[in-house]
């Protein structure tokens, strides 16, 4: 059983006990523990069930590569699934639950799948859930959903805070082990701005556990001195608990800082996502030990040899009293030696190499440890925990030579450099035969904006696995990074010198024993988290999945939350073997960010709640809010849809507002309309190109409605253009159009007609704009101004500068409602004052604010088009009967050539008409008018569609506009519009102007 040793634990503070709970059980750990070490200290060997077969699983690793120990962590607003125990620092009150089992970890119904494993091979789901098709939705999908996924989905709103941070450095070093620190020192001494990030809370990486000497002193001292030296440098920033998430184009690096995961509830952001630009990136990300593929290698108690050593040295925790070590390399001997020196039993070291190891083997033997060379694990005995191993010859098929009782197995299949960050942005790999791993091909580095390499691997991440060569490599990397960012290497020219520790060559062992029968291969796990075995990969190869990317997706190897950190190389070695080709030919799957999963909330950063997106407010927004406005989003603006009173429905409110405008007086907050000032001697000429109409002939003081098209002819925006003076125009755009039309104008001015003398400024927000509409509109304004705004002094489509309620204003006589209407524009800072004055003065006319829906209905009653309703990016002005707004005299305007193309002039294009329902009801929005026959797909032919449809309270019936084939020539014809419920509505084609056809009301 696993337990806490009486002494030791480099990272512990033994005098500080920490209480936590696991599946409701109260347990106790120590300050400095990870959740994993604390669980092991409490003999919680089994920590979860596997994904597919629900097999008992224990902790395998001690770091980010852990595949099994994933938990539902926290509660309520701090609940999060799939959290790794090995990277979770223990804190008081931590609550965790294991995942993937029901009803309990110890007794799990789903474990039946384990018995059915023969029937659940690779591709099981693809093969099984095919037919019948009718089962897809109601049988297969619920089944798959039930069995899919690991942890629970959080239910409560996350109460923590998250933020981003933009930072810029010459050199970013990822990894704070001996290589990272050495590289940072070399770059820092050269004067570069350096950031070093380390994903754990501790500097030094594996070195303090693995031991060794630098410059004649223990490596711990070297780590401490290096950190102290870096801290003393003003140009170096050190961050712990910060992981290099990914390396992206042009030196973009994401750093994931877990600011308060270890101290939840203290003030501050939980995670901070650093968005970094680096001149050079040094990946000192170390290496990860590989498991060995033998039967039962997933039984709780089978762990990586390095992890067994870490738990013993760092946390004073033994994985078992009797630990069998099985290896293909020298490094695992360090584990045996460590355990032996702590007084624990190592019954045997099974070394798969016929010749065994080097100096470390001799040292182990010297301690009295039995070493068996050329031997392997045939299978692990035990279910929920290791009970023993059956020993066989590595060269054979698994005939058991001996049974050895033990309660833990420490395995080592060699080391793979962590090449993820090197590879993210295109760094290539080469196969290192001697170490049986891929390492960075330093001649094929990712390149940056200048086309030069910007990532340098260092230390174990570059395949320099031993301390001495790692330091040399990292020192060179740091100097190179500094030089590449324009810093003359300073400081020490020589790398720190470590005592060499020669090791015997490792031997590639991809299957144990090499001739294992299928019964063993079916129990030899590659991917613990996704339950992929040696036999699955072999099956995939037999079924033709020869590409590693295909085999990965077919078997789900490496697709779990650990992204194959342990399984990748072992899996592709098995695949290569099955395909009979060398490993480099098979290649690896693609390494993609993030290195380990990061919180979704950290990606969102500040963008949540009220700051999720900017909400644009007009100067009258507060008034609207206080007066019952139902807001609707229009782009990022919030506009009142209607102002409800009391128990009114939205529809009742809209009808009331329309009645008020048509009968007396209403106010519209029109501040959101885009307003662009266009000025210069060539302004008229420029607007002639931008609008379909002739704008250069507009007289100062007059307004003209204009249409704007894209170069391919489609109508994109409309609005009223006002000529303020000879050189100056004010162009109104749609609410959403101000920025895009401004951009459109600048684009043509800067990139096509750059010699034209025109300036444009976006003054949308300078003005608050109020539409004053209704038969009493002039009367209310006359109460507030001494200026002459009579029909003679300010005629329809005219404009004037006046003072109203003591506020300087521009008044435009334009109408979108069909009533007598004025639009007043005042400085935004005076908008609210104007609004208040109009409400007060209008009281005697029963004034009411009206919202966008009332405006829409009224404009539809008048047959006015709305960009986005009558247009959808495929409609040209000619389709909408707007030929009157298209100049025939102009040689050119943007969109003119396109509108001459044959399909644009096709007489069969659908054209705008009014639609009047026979029963007075309201047509469904977007409904299609059917025609005889069916098309090639067997669907009903169509001959038109509804673009706007409302109940008109003015007319007491449904009105609509629509685009209809030859519509204007078919007045009086009745069309059929099927509804979703299968019934059909009939509507007559009519003129689209339903109200005041002669415009007498607006022109008084």
């Amino acid at each position, binding site marked *: 059983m696993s337990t806490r040793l009486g002494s030791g634990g480099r990272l512990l503070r033994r005098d500080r006990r920490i209480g936590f709970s696991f599946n409701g059980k109260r347990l106790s750990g120590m300050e400095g523990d990870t959740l994993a070490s604390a669980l092991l200290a409490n003999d919680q060997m089994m920590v979860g069930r596997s994904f597919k077969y629900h097999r008992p699983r224990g902790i395998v690793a001690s770091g980010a590569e852990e595949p099994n120990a994933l938990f539902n962590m926290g509660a309520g607003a701090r609940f999060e699934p799939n959290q790794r125990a090995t990277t979770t620092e223990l804190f008081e009150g931590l609550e965790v639950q294991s995942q993937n089992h029901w009803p309990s970890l110890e007794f799990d119904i789903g474990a039946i799948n384990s018995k059915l494993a023969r029937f659940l091979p690779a591709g099981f789901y693809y093969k099984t859930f095919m037919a019948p098709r009718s089962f897809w939705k109601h049988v297969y999908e619920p089944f798959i959903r039930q069995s899919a996924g690991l942890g629970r989905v959080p239910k409560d709103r996350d109460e923590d805070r998250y933020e981003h941070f933009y930072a810029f450095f010459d050199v970013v070093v990822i990894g704070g082990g001996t290589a990272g620190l050495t590289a940072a020192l070399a770059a820092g001494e050269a004067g570069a701005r350096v950031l070093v990030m380390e994903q754990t809370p501790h500097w030094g990486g594996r070195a303090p556990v693995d031991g060794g000497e630098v410059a004649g002193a223990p490596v711990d001292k070297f780590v401490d001195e290096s950190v102290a030296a870096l801290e003393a440098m003003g140009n170096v920033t050190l961050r712990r608990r910060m992981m290099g998430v990914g390396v992206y*184009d*042009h030196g973009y690096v994401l750093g994931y800082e877990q600011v308060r995961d270890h101290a939840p509830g203290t003030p501050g952001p939980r995670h901070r996502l650093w968005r970094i630009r680096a001149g050079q990136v040094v990946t000192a990300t170390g290496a990860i030990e590989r498991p060995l593929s033998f039967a039962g290698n997933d039984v709780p108690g089978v762990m990586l040899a390095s992890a067994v050593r870490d738990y013993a040295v760092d946390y004073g925790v033994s994985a078992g009293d009797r630990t069998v070590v099985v290896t293909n390399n020298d490094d695992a001997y360090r584990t045996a030696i460590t355990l032996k020196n702590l007084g624990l039993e190592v019954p045997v070291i099974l070394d798969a190499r016929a010749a065994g190891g080097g100096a470390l083997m001799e040292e182990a033997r010297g301690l009295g440890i039995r070493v068996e060379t050329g031997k392997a694990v045939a299978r692990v005995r035990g279910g929920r925990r290791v009970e023993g191993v059956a020993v066989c010859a590595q060269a054979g098929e698994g005939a058991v030579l001996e049974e050895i009782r033990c309660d833990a197995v420490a395995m080592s299949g060699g080391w793979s450099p962590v090449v993820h960050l090197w590879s993210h942005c295109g760094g290539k790999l080469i196969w290192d035969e001697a170490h049986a791993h891929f390492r960075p091909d330093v001649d094929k580095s990712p390149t940056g*904006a200048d*086309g030069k390499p910007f990532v340098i691997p260092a230390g174990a991440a570059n395949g320099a696995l031993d301390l001495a060569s790692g330091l040399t490599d990292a020192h060179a990397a740091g100097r190179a990074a500094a030089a590449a960012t324009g810093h003359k290497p300073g400081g020490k020219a020589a790398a720190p010198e470590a005592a060499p520790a020669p090791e015997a060559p490792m031997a590639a062992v991809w299957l144990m024993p090499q001739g294992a029968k299928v019964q063993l291969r079916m129990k030899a796990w590659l991917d613990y988290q996704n339950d992929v075995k040696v036999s699955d990969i072999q099956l995939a190869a037999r079924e033709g999945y020869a590409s590693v990317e295909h085999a990965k997706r077919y078997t789900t190897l490496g697709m779990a939350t650990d992204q194959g950190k342990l399984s990748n190389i072992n899996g592709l070695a098995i695949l290569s073997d099955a395909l009979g080709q060398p490993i480099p030919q098979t290649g690896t799957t693609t390494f993609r960010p993030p290195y380990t999963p990061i919180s979704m909330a950290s990606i969102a950063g500040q963008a949540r709640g009220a700051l999720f997106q900017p909400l644009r407010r007009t100067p009258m927004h507060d008034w609207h809010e206080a007066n019952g406005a139902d807001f609707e989003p229009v782009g990022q603006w919030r506009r009142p849809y209607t102002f409800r009173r009391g128990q009114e429905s939205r529809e009742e409110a809209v009808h009331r507002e329309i009645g008020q405008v048509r009968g007396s007086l209403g106010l519209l907050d029109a501040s959101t309309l885009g307003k662009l000032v266009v000025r210069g001697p060539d302004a008229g000429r420029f607007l002639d190109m931008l609008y379909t109409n002739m704008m250069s002939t507009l007289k100062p003081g007059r307004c003209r409605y204009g249409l704007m098209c894209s170069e391919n002819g489609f109508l994109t925006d409309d609005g009223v253009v006002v000529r303020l003076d000879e050189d100056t125009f004010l162009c109104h755009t749609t609410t959403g159009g101000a920025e895009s039309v401004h*951009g459109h104008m600048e684009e043509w001015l*800067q990139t096509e007609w750059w010699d034209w003398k025109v300036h444009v400024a976006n003054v949308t927000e300078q003005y608050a704009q109020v539409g004053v509409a209704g038969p009493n509109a002039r009367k209310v304004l006359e109460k507030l101004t001494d200026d002459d705004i009579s029909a003679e002094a300010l005629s329809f489509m005219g404009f004037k500068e006046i003072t109203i309620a003591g506020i300087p204003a521009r008044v435009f006589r334009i109408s979108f409602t069909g009533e007598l209407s004025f639009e007043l524009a005042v400085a935004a800072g005076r908008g609210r004052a104007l609004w208040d004055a109009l409400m007060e003065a209008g009281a005697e006319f029963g004034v009411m604010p009206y919202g966008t829906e009332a405006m829409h209905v009224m404009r539809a009653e008048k047959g006015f088009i709305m960009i986005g309703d009558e247009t959808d990016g495929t409609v040209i002005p000619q389709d909408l009967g707007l030929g009157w707004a298209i100049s025939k005299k102009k*040689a050119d305007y943007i969109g003119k*050539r396109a509108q001459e193309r044959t399909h644009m002039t096709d007489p069969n294009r659908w054209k705008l008409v009014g639609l009047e329902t026979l029963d007075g009801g309201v047509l469904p929005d977007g409904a299609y008018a059917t025609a005889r026959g069916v098309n090639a797909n067997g669907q009903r032919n169509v001959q038109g569609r509804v673009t706007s449809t409302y109940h008109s309270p003015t007319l007491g019936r449904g009105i609509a506009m629509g685009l209809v084939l030859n519509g204007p020539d078919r007045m009086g014809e009745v069309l059929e519009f099927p509804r979703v419920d299968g019934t059909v509505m009939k509507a007559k084609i009519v003129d689209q102007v339903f109200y005041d056809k002669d415009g007498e009301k607006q022109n008084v």
Partner: protein
Amino acid sequence: MLILECPCCGVKGEETEFAPGGEAHLKRFGPGSSEDDFHAYLFEKENPRGVHFERWRHANGCGKWFHAARDTLTLEVFGTYPAQTAEPPKDIRDKIAARRPGWRWREFS
């Protein structure tokens, strides 16, 4: 995420400050042009694997349009230059030639 240097204001900013604007150095065809020329102008855009000339706008910045010469495969930026020109300037073309001997893009090389 790219870094571009706006030649108009000199800011070296990240991609989120800029808005892409498609192929550079288009020749506009208006009324009177042939169907083929107009079609090509609107729709037949270069989509090379390698050297490319693009338009960008410093939308969250000085607001100016500019051109960028860029390798779409390696994302190397050969240079940026003002939009008020009908062809890539010589220094940019020389720089591309040094980095990508024998390059061609539309009528330029």
